[in-house]
């Protein structure tokens, strides 16, 4: 993967060459070049995803072209990991595609380096969007990304496995103690054949939600840590008594099962993660049905939940076809027929017009229904993560797994993570 330092150098070189390029070019009109039906302009669109998404995107592009004969869309795709290596190189070479599918964790990085177009300067309709969702695509008053779709955090469970153990299905209104008891119950009733779940305290976003439940910000607007060491110690101590019991799957088992998740491998009864993993879990585990309930909270009025854009649409700051790019983004996020094509392949459609125009069935319906059921608990989505967030998230997971291996105590783990986090934030300041 391309790390931050690498990115810096790439962008530095890129900016220099872009400046050289700009010197020779002449200023174009604010809307960029436009085409006609006889002589259409061609914009490049790129996304990551599998075969299924490629097929759906092809259909959406064909529909867009038939409705907009003056624009041709040239679609390309790669896998997720390769996608970012390619983008970093292109950003440096000044050749980012006109329109791109984007991930939240890279938004600030590219946005701050002026690689992305401020979409508030072009015409994209955002009236049908949840107001709490839009800030997640904005940085310092500029809109760099429009969410295509949302996901939310949830607890997954397999009803068939619980039934076979004689455990009642949870309704999702549980405190942390009740959730822990539930995990222990699975472990003891199955005699070690099935673990309760993975250690949820190792999941950054779950920690973030717990902080929100306690009215603490994860990051201050200045990009510093908003919580103290004591908060993190309290968090990692939540499952201290469960580690090494049947409630939590041991770390060495997790490693053996990789790249599949413990839940997808039928080694655990529950998993705490984003609700758009449903299709993946169903495919991996072969389970008939999986259900979603809200995360635990000690304050049932504040679940700390929020909708996060599972993906965004962005445009390159250097695109020559601003108008065409804006029309394509608008179409991809708002058109009801596009919703019908993608279903939940990109997540639950973020725009209400698109969501209402889509019929959901089976698995898709379970995810949409879950997001509807938590509507009253939703608060503003957090701002785009700080630069280097991916590294922080990964080190959170790594240190928590050392905790599970017994290599670190909670105090030691807290100190280790804070040191890494503070160093990283200092580097990026």
């Amino acid at each position, binding site marked *: 993967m391309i790390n931050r330092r690498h990115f810096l150098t790439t962008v530095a*070189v890129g900016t220099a060459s872009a400046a050289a390029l700009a010197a020779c070019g002449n200023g174009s009109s604010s809307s960029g070049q436009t085409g006609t039906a006889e002589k259409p302009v061609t914009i490049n669109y790129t996304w990551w995803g599998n075969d299924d998404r*490629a097929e759906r995107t092809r259909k959406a592009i064909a529909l867009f072209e038939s409705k907009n004969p003056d624009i041709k869309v040239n679609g390309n795709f790669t*896998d997720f990991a390769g996608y970012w*290596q390619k983008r970093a190189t292109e950003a440096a070479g000044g050749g980012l595609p006109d329109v791109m599918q984007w991930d939240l964790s890279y938004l600030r990085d590219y946005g701050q380096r002026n690689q992305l177009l401020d979409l508030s300067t072009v015409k994209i309709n955002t009236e049908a969007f949840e107001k709490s969702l839009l800030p997640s695509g904005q940085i310092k008053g500029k809109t760099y990304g429009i969410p295509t779709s949302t996901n939310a955090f949830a607890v997954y469970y397999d009803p068939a496995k619980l039934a076979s153990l004689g455990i009642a299905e949870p309704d999702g209104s549980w405190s942390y103690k009740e959730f822990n008891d539930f995990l222990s119950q699975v472990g003891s009733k199955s005699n070690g054949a099935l673990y309760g779940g993975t250690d949820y305290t190792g999941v950054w976003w779950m920690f973030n939600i717990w902080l929100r439940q306690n009215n603490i910000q994860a990051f201050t607007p200045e990009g510093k840590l908003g919580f103290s060491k004591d908060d993190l110690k309290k968090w990692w101590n939540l499952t201290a008594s469960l580690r090494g019991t049947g409630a939590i799957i041991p770390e060495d088992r997790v490693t053996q099962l990789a790249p599949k998740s413990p839940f997808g491998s*039928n080694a655990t009864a529950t998993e705490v993660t984003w609700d758009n993993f449903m299709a993946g879990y169903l495919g991996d585990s072969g389970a008939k049905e999986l259900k979603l309930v809200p995360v635990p909270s000690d304050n049932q009025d504040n679940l700390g939940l929020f909708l996060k854009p599972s993906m965004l649409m962005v445009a390159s700051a250097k695109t020559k076809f601003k108008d065409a790019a804006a029309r394509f983004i608008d179409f991809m996020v708002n058109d009801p027929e596009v919703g019908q094509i993608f279903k939940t392949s990109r997540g639950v459609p973020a725009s209400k017009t698109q969501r209402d125009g889509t019929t959901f069935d089976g698995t898709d319906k379970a995810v949409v229904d879950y997001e509807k059921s938590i509507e009253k608990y939703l608060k503003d989505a957090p701002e785009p993560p700080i630069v280097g967030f991916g590294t922080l998230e990964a080190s959170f997971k790594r240190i928590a797994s050392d905790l599970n291996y017994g290599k670190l105590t909670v105090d030691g783990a807290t100190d280790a993570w804070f040191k890494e986090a503070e160093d990283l934030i200092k580097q990026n300041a």
Partner: protein
Amino acid sequence: MTTMATPTHSAGAKAPDYNPKSESAGAKRAKSIIFHAAALVLTAIVLYPGLWMIASSFKPNAEIGGQNTSLWSNNFSFDNFVTAMEGIGGVSTLQFFTNSLILALGAVVGTILSASVSAYAFARINFPGRSLFFGMMIATLLLPFHVVIIPQYIVFQQLGLVDTYVPLLIGKFLAADAFFVFLMVQFMRGLPAELDEAARIDGAGHARIFGSIMLPLMKPALISTSIFSFIWSWNDFLGPLLYLNTPDKYPLPLALRLFVDQTQSSDYGAMIAMSVLALLPVLLFFLIFQRYIVEGVSTQGLKG
């Protein structure tokens, strides 16, 4: 590879042991059995991942990895191969194979042509600055690929050559693979200079000496170069990832990654099936030419 490790059994061969006098035939046999048993165990360990891959390509997706540790599945089927052959996003798998083949053969032809000519110049022509240029060429070996990615990309981007095969092949035709040039220079230095001196007396120029004397003698070096450049090009991921945009132009390594998407569902079965298919050409290429590799190592020019 394993054939090289097999010891000779001819009676005349002397086994390397501490005390050759007291070695009986029985002890020799026991030693040989132990050696072979150990070699077989090692081979099994080395080959296990390959075996796992082949076995998994016949399993349903849900039975690959995770808790399933058994090698064979009762749900044996060719479904994964059917899915793999259907292609991705409207591009047929055959197209990916063709692309990989074009790139790999292009790399072989380019490298052979350019590296042998450059090597001849370095090994046989005493031009001014030869050692300086030779040193510079070796220095490029020390330059990590990642350092030149961005500058190279900018050059090709501004020449409008991105999304063509030119950036991937042009280096091969210009002897940019210093490793191969070096390999051939070393090989040529091992060839007796009397041969080309004799040819020169007979009135041959450089072209004639290179074509009629050097090339035929260099066969082992040319073959090992072909094998390596074929395999490297066939397995190259980063180059095509950066320079190719249109899925119709993707070679196999890029296509393989499209089956595994951590953000959605991953079709491990199809990916593994396609990996098996993608391995076949390399394996065949290696099997056909491997005896030449051994030959190339053992003859080293005209010695012995």
